[in-house]
């Protein structure tokens, strides 16, 4: 057989080195490179946006955590403040000090120290700082002391480069006197809203947010998870459960403001039935009504995430448990739920993060009120972080710009803490197969 037999139908062996093949290989490599570059640029673009956001917020916000203080020499006895030491320990101390004209005394001290306009250099709340200092140290009543009191917004802003000619001159004079210092603004961490940007604090809104989140979690988590368990493990598959499934998916997509209107109508509405007026069910502006409304909003998210997590538990585990005589409820609580927990928690945290950042529905149920004291409980009027940010961003005074950014930083910190907790819990519940 020295002559190969040529079959017409037989294909020639593939030439892996042909130019066409080479071209195909080059094209394949190019496509791979292109895709990798595109993916990397997408990541870089989003990282840049994030870095830009964080940079802007920190650049503007850090000043919100600081305060400009003036060293105010004050001699209460010489200025004629008539208050007995004994009164200071009583609850009536604030009233006694205000009645004795402490505010005027502080103004006079400022005029004496900083010149005729000295009184305007102090924040309106400066005398409150003095009052608290006296209560801490009653010896102040008899001797001359130098106290650091918050400076007026004008002085503070002039230091940041936003002052007019007159204030700039005043700042220069004060600096020459060595009376200005900048320090950490503890007030911002433990006070609430105020009309004066120097005196505002985030604590009221933060506490409001935490209370609201607690209510939201306590309602949405158990109800959502139990609904998911029932729908996945117990409910018969028929037209009704299909309808429920479609409704839940639709609810998850409903804009949040609709939930705000729902909360307003249902929880804060009144009904006249047979001549008697019923309602409102819940107090206005409170963490309770906010939490319930947000719970309604994120429940579908939790139900959907939990159902998917429960679906993801291998059926062989259910068989194994049923096969040795576990009851359906034991199967769910001993096996299915622990295995689904990481997924359920992830969904819950996504929902909670959404609730934490939600503003629109809360505006409708009155959580946009001007609240100067932190809520003592879930029925007290309260506001929440995003609403506080919204309110401050609306203020005219320049001092509020940095407070707004500072509040955004606090909100981001809370979000980060929540996500961190979620990751921790997920790893804790994660099963190694």
């Amino acid at each position, binding site marked *: 057989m020295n002559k190969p037999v040529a079959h017409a139908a037989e294909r020639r062996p593939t030439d892996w080195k042909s130019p066409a093949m080479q071209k195909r290989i080059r094209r394949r490599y190019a496509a791979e490179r292109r895709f990798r570059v595109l993916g990397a640029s997408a990541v870089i673009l989003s990282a840049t946006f994030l870095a830009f956001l964080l940079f802007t917020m920190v650049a503007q916000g850090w000043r919100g955590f600081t305060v400009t203080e003036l060293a105010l020499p004050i001699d209460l006895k010489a200025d004629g403040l008539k208050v007995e030491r004994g009164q200071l320990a009583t609850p009536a101390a604030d009233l006694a000090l205000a009645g004795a004209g402490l505010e005027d005394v502080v103004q006079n001290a400022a005029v004496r120290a900083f010149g005729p306009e000295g009184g305007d250099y102090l924040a309106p709340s400066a005398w409150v700082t003095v009052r608290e200092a006296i209560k801490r140290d009653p010896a102040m009543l008899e001797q001359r002391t130098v106290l650091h009191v918050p400076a007026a917004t004008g002085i503070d802003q002039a230091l940041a480069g936003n002052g007019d000619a007159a204030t700039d001159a005043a700042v220069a004079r004060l600096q020459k006197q060595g009376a200005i210092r900048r320090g950490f603004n503890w007030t911002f961490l433990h006070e609430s809203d105020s009309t004066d940007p120097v005196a505002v604090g985030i604590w009221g809104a933060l506490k409001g947010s935490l209370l609201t989140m607690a209510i939201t979690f306590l309602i949405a988590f158990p109800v959502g998870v139990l609904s998911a368990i029932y729908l996945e493990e117990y409910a018969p598959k028929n037209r009704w459960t299909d309808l429920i499934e479609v409704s839940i998916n639709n609810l998850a997509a409903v804009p949040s403001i609709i939930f705000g209107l729902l909360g307003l109508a249902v929880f804060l509405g009144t009904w006249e039935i047979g001549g008697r007026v019923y309602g409102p069910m819940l107090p206005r502006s409170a963490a309770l009504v906010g939490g319930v409304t947000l719970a309604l909003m994120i429940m579908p998210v939790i139900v959907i995430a939990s159902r998917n997590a429960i679906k993801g538990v*291998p059926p062989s585990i259910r*068989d194994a448990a*049923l*096969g*040795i*005589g*576990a009851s359906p409820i034991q199967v769910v609580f001993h096996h299915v739920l622990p295995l689904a927990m990481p997924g359920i928690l992830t969904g819950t945290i996504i929902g909670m993060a959404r609730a934490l950042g939600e503003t629109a529905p809360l505006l409708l149920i009155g959580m946009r009120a001007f609240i100067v004291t932190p809520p003592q409980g879930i029925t007290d009027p309260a506001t929440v972080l995003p609403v506080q940010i919204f309110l401050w961003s609306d203020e005219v005074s320049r001092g509020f710009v940095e407070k707004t950014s500072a509040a955004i930083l606090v909100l981001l910190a809370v979000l980060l803490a929540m996500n961190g907790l979620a990751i921790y819990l997920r790893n804790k519940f994660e099963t190694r197969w």
Partner: protein
Amino acid sequence: MTIAPSPAPHKMSARDVSVFYGAKQAVNNVSIDVDMDKVTAFIGPSGCGKSTFLRTLNRMNDTIATARVSGQIMLDGEDIYSQDMDVVQLRARVGMVFQKPNPFPKSIFENVAYGPRIHGLAGSKTDLEGIVERSLKRAGLWEEVKDRLSDSGTALSGGQQQRLCIARAIAVDPEVILMDEPASALDPIATAKIEELIHELRGRYAIVIVTHNMQQAARVSQRTAFFHLGQLVEYGETDNIFTAPREERTKDYITGRYG
């Protein structure tokens, strides 16, 4: 169906059992008896209804919404589909081992202890430890795992996992053990160990095993039932089935005409 009359009443007997999935009939009028101290093998081609029928014996078909069972299945003379039968207790008395090893993603100890715990079979911690040790010993796994009882059951090899599942089933002290192709996912050595184990367990329990593998049926069982198209074609002593089948279809299957 010639079965030598046994002096004791049958452990389980099925009469005219049919199983429907919706409108489709998967098992058609099957009557069969299962006795203590015997291994009964169900053989037949894929989709012949042998696994479905096996799952009626401890009512695992209840978990399938569309499945419907007719006929009568007795366990010690009690109808297991009657209102008085508690299905949870039934499944403890009629244990099951599945095709794919399915240990819980918990420790080896917890895997075995779970059943006794939910049924309240152990009076104390030492009692429970005793049950776990005894079950693992009976399943032939004790020597391999006694030093690492707190390791995850899913970290074991496939064959060990399946023996762990057998230990888990016998820990609740069943009377009947159903095995649904217990070795089909295992390598030959692990399979041999499972078969050996079935031999050893035979004296204590009535064992029903579904298998695809005719050699396995011949090796481990005393009785063999051949299923085809949802019907029980032939049931008898394993030796007779494999050497002198009465039905043409049985012969065709055993000689490999179809599979």
